[in-house]
């Protein structure tokens, strides 16, 4: 019976333990290290190029090649969130109790058990002692608030507290909350938004975005046109600026024109377009084939990635790839030669150089003209969760600062008459939630000044040195 009852308690205890927090921090750190050392987002086939088959399968099995998106990494993050929530559940009620307005009655004996406490025997009557203490505490700690001792009758002890920064104890929960807000925002973004790319040729309009993850295409509710793309360079040859003049077209009507550069994207209806890359697109190329046996020349025009039958044969030729600068020897096209019933062959042909290797099958190839266009590479993103992430970041910054540099400081004072010795006993106790060292120094200073003022009532500490001097000379 008791075991059944304690089982959920034990689970909560484990989930809310600080040890689990540390284990999770180390586990997440170690996992992230592995993620930076192994190639990420590569297929099993590519892994086999770098590792032995066994190692490659193991990496793939544990999803170490896509670690940050793997289930086990997400479980670690989920555990961290659970740990955080469990800690809050366990500790927040205690904290709230601690900072509630209500102050339980206390007495000198209770105060003397504090880690930081001190007792002074004053030679003054109660009322005067009280006013001295009040003025001293007000100067250094702030206003005092009297607490009813709970004793009935006139000559009870005077009990009061002075405190500042009560809210400071809640800040650590705000830090933890902000971490959750950021993660929820990231989750919202990954489920409700998308990320993709768009390559827009100058002058063309498109509404199709290649999605990053699924390798599929999505259509935007509007179209985007690129009017112009410009790239400028410094004297050193380093790129200076990439700029695209874009226009949003909705139902055939242009609704917005804007130029974007890196670091200054365009947002329309929650979808943002970032300048990411640029390149040259080959529309078509004219080529001339020479048959070395008959010296017969054949001229053809090949649109990019469209097979064209070679006149007089049943074979086909296609430009499969285009490179602006292939291995630093200039422009090149990749030709694919297709013969019926046979495997096709492919060959890189240099555009600007009449190189003897410019051959495919037994033809000599020469590129006579190229028709090219510039395209701008855009990163396209929709992220409805981003506002949560920004809110979480702002909250995190503020709350970390406040957690570290504010503290709940509380000073308890109890003044009671000691009838036997005709003295008044002042008991002080203090506690700070943070920066205890600084608080301790302040407490000591208060104690020393009170001791001065209460033990030598005839010599208020401000002018004490002066008075004794006088005494000496008289």
């Amino acid at each position, binding site marked *: 019976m008791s075991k059944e009852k304690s089982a959920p308690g034990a689970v909560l205890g484990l989930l809310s333990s*600080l*040890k689990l*927090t*540390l284990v999770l*921090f*180390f586990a*997440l*750190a170690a996992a*992230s*290290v592995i*993620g*930076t*050392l192994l190639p*990420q987002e590569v297929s099993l086939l590519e892994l086999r190029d770098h590792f032995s088959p066994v190692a490659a399968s193991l990496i793939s099995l544990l999803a170490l090649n896509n670690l*940050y998106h793997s289930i086990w990494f997400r479980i670690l993050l989920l555990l961290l969130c659970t740990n955080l929530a469990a800690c809050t559940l366990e500790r927040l009620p205690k904290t709230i109790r601690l900072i509630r307005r209500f102050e339980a009655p206390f007495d000198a004996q209770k105060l003397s058990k504090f880690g930081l406490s001190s007792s002074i025997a004053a030679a003054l009557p109660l009322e005067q002692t009280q006013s001295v203490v009040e003025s001293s505490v007000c100067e250094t700690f702030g206003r005092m608030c009297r607490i009813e001792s709970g004793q009935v009758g006139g000559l009870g002890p005077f009990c009061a507290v002075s405190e500042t920064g009560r809210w400071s104890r809640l800040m650590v929960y705000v830090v933890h909350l902000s971490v959750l807000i950021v993660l929820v925002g*990231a989750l919202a973004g990954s489920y409700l938004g998308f*990320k993709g790319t768009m390559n827009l040729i100058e002058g063309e309009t498109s509404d199709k975005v290649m999605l990053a993850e699924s390798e599929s295409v999505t259509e935007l509710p509007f179209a985007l046109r690129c009017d112009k793309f410009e790239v400028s360079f*410094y004297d*050193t040859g*380093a*790129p*200076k*600026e*990439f700029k695209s003049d874009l226009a949003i077209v909705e139902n055939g009507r242009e609704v917005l024109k804007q130029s974007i*550069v*890196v*670091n*200054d*994207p365009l947002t329309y209806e929650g979808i*943002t377009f*970032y*300048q*990411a890359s640029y390149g040259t697109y080959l529309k078509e190329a004219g080529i001339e084939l020479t048959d070395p046996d008959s010296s017969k020349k054949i001229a053809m025009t090949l649109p990019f990635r469209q097979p064209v039958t070679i006149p007089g044969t049943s074979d086909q030729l296609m430009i499969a790839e285009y490179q602006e600068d292939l291995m630093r020897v200039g422009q090149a096209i990749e030709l694919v030669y297709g013969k019926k019933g046979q495997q096709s062959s492919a060959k890189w042909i240099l555009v600007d150089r009449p190189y003897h290797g410019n051959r495919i099958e037994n033809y000599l190839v020469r590129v006579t003209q190229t028709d090219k266009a510039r395209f701008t590479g855009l*990163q*396209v*993103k929709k992220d409805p969760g*981003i506002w949560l*992430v*920004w809110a979480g*970041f702002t909250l*995190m*910054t503020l709350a*970390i*600062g406040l957690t*570290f540099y504010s503290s709940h400081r509380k000073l308890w004072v109890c003044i009671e008459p000691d009838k036997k010795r005709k003295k008044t006993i002042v008991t002080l106790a203090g506690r700070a939630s943070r920066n205890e*060292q600084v608080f301790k120094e302040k407490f000591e200073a208060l104690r020393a000044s009170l001791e001065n003022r209460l033990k030598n009532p005839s010599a208020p500490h401000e002018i004490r040195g002066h008075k004794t001097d006088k005494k000496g000379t008289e």
Partner: protein
Amino acid sequence: MTSSFLLSLTTFAYLLCTFLYLAGTIFRFKPLLVAGTISGAATLLMQTAGIGLRWVESYRMGYGHAPLSNMYESLVFASWAIMIIYLVFEWRVRQRALGVFPALFSFLAMAYASFSKDVDSKIQPLVPALKSNWLIAHVMTCFLGYAAFAVSCGLSLLYLVRKRFPENPNPHGGFVAFLPGASQLEWFNYQLVLFGFLWLSVGIITGSVWANSAWGTYWSWDPKETWSLITWFIYAAVLHARNLQGWKGQRVAWLSVIGFGCVLFTYFGVNFLLSGLHSYAR
């Protein structure tokens, strides 16, 4: 006078400062420590002038950007940040015997920036990705954090040295007696970890806000990002471990040394060993 002259002079001045602190601590001779502080402060001023001059020079060359854009400039700033954080710390806690490691780190950062073949000290124009107001905020916050962690690492090392010797050492028993007590060192270390953690967090946040406007994603698990997160995890562990029984003290000191190791890897290891989006930091 050029910025490169001032910054070369800074390198040697930090070496002198390191020797003064070291000699002052070893021979327990206070005037040497005072000289260490004075030379540290003077070098810091000279370095500030050097950085300012480099900024002006970049405008003269027509590039016009804050000197925080490549490995060389970030190393100079790191060295500057370590020294200013240390000097403010020294002034706040009134302890002079702790300057050896911070001064050494400042010197090493400057020496590496000046003499390594991997680090190009030329003023270069900004590539498009770096042209953003976030550049200053991101680099400054990150390096304030890194610098605080450097000082914290120095304190942790001193703490570990202090712990090797008995608590009540013979007053004439060598330089250890000259150091503050272990609990005080632990407290100083904690204060610097707090400071560093705050700035590292702000640095990661400004970085991801910037990445979002430059690349369209605030987090892409780029090696530099990931390593800064690893560092963040380690220091978060330091902050939490301090409340755990048996961890406050030596284990926390070791953790903060490991944390600084992560900082160094985030800074150098990622730049030279791993490839990623931060390649201009080379």
